[in-house]
């Protein structure tokens, strides 16, 4: 499966063929809150085995795009395919890391319990938690550098550590497509480094990673592809082609100073 995916390049394939092989293909997706569209008629085709950043100004619909792709937010219109099949059939191959702020960290649960939630499907409704489940959960915590924190209550963690626990839960799912919503927002340098290391190891293992990202300065360093959005799609493709002063200007409008844009272009050039 992965072999054939690698062989399909962007050139010379029709849109339909892309949809058949892309880890995440979105067509004509529109999501509205009330009457105001948050995402309007967006097409997106994630390239397999790559790291893709979703970028855009505040309120541009980055998180909404991700949530609608996962069916968390109901779209007004549009189609989502995961590895060429309908979303519902492919849920087991997707791991989602929500924004850290979306939950109550005073919830009575330990770090290891949160990671164990990633094994929800394997455990089923009544299955007992066994030694090998705990081993998997601990391995995932080790991968994000949180092995020593397994028995802590989640409220005792710093913001960056909370984010890494969320990532460990996603790792426990052993998925093929990872969708992360602002994993680098408000985290310390150690966490940012730990997360990017894990994401790169996922890519090295042939997995596809899509990240809602806000820090323009690190885009060229971290990612292969970008997807620029401001309610509508602005640009999509490899960083060198789609992450340019022109596309940034189009996505951010007056919100970025020309000097800032030029500087970013230098960073990636």
């Amino acid at each position, binding site marked *: 499966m992965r072999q054939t995916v690698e062989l399909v390049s962007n050139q010379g394939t029709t849109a339909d063929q892309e949809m058949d092989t892309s880890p995440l293909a979105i067509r004509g997706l529109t999501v509205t809150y009330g009457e105001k569209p948050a995402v309007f008629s967006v097409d997106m085709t994630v390239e397999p085995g790559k790291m893709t950043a979703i970028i855009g100004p505040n309120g541009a619909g980055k998180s909404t795009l991700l949530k609608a792709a996962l069916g*968390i937010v109901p779209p007004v219109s549009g189609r989502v395919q995961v590895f060429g099949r309908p979303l519902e059939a492919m849920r087991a191959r997707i791991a989602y890391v929500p924004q850290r702020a979306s*939950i109550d960290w005073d919830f009575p*649960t330990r770090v290891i319990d*949160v990671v164990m939630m990633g094994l929800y499907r394997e455990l089923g409704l009544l299955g007992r938690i066994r030694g090998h489940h705990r081993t998997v959960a601990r391995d995932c915590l080790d991968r994000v550098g949180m092995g*020593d924190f397994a028995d802590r209550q989640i409220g005792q963690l*710093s913001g960056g550590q909370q984010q890494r626990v969320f990532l460990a839960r996603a790792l426990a799912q052993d998925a093929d497509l990872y969708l992360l919503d602002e994993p680098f927002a408000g985290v310390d340098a150690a966490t940012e480094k730990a997360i990017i290391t894990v994401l790169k190891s996922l890519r090295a293992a042939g997995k596809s990673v899509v990240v809602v990202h806000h820090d323009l300065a690190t885009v060229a360093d971290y990612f292969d592809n970008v997807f620029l959005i401001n309610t509508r799609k602005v640009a999509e493709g490899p960083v060198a082609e789609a992450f340019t002063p022109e596309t940034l200007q189009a996505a951010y409008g007056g919100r970025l100073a020309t000097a800032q844009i030029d500087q970013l272009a230098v960073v990636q050039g």
Partner: protein
Amino acid sequence: MLLDALLLQLGYNATLVSVGAALLGGAAGISGTFLFLRKRALVSDAVSHATLPGVGLAFLVMVFLGGDGRNLAGLLFGSAVSAGIGLLCMNWLTRNTRLAEDAAIGAVLSVFFGFGIVLLTVIQTLGVGRQAGLEGFLLGSTAGMLLSDAMIIAGGSALALMVIILMRRPMMLVAFDPEYAAARGLPVHHIDMLMMGLVMAVTVVGLKIVGLILIVALLIIPAVTARFWTERSDRVVVIAGLAGGASAYLGAAISASAPNLPTGPIIVLVSFLLFALSLLFAPNRGVLAAVLRHQRFQRRVHLRQGLLALAQGQPIYEPLTLRLLRRAGLVRADGVATDKGRARAAKALRDEKRWELVRSDLAHEAAAALYDGLREIETVLTPDQIRDIDCRIGGPQEVPA
């Protein structure tokens, strides 16, 4: 008398009531916990008040059909239907209008309850059937409880518990992180409805004993009580079940031991007592523990600051600091450090340097997270690790003991 009641020696009726109440309390505590952890505890208040019109309507229907208007199964069925309608109304209001959930709860609660009271008044003026006793559903009444009534309560509670055991994982996942649950393909909306449906079922079977006004206490207080004692969700559920069962059993026994003590309110008071005890005395989360912790913390801060001041030859002005140092035999009455004081001060300064290194080193992240300026470094690092750090700091290796 109370002891007899507790040991189920107070006759057939009292025994029925106590056992039924204990089962109900357990089921209420457990099903309420999920709603509490989902931060929707007040939904149960709307659900319970929405049962009242159903009670009145079921009574009228049964009387007009020529039956006994007070048949418990019939009344409970009616109350379940109207509570279900109330639940759907609330749900529709929150999903399809701009009303927030609290406003929807208020609207449903007051309208349904008002309608129910009107129905009860009409029934009284109609003078049909033997309507006496319908008011018992407001505050609970256990006089004349039949075995069949107790069986309904036991059966309903047992059914609710079975559903909870089966669905505990998806329900907890939704309570903790609904977005992630949705991303995993869980039907979050349906699971929410299930949680509320369970609460509704418990409310309905509890109408007879606790009454609809106070059942909310039995759903919420045990969960809040349990939260004081543990940081694990599975244990919160179990403790809430035990607390609910115990307070319902105790309350029913107390009310049976003296004439004219209402069952529902006594049960609620007992469960409040458990809550108050937990609030005050629970380790970690309790009020008393917090006060003690703060005091201990303050003393340690003062002692530490005093030692660091001694080590660096700075004067100490804070009276509390001086008093603590003197009491520990670290300074003399005139404020001059003793030999022991000088040794401890030197170690405090060295530990400060060790911590500085630990905190700047990513390899020691877990240990560094425990840094609060006070913790003894020996409690988080092994002697080998400390020796290694001392080598990196340099300087004299022997700390005078």
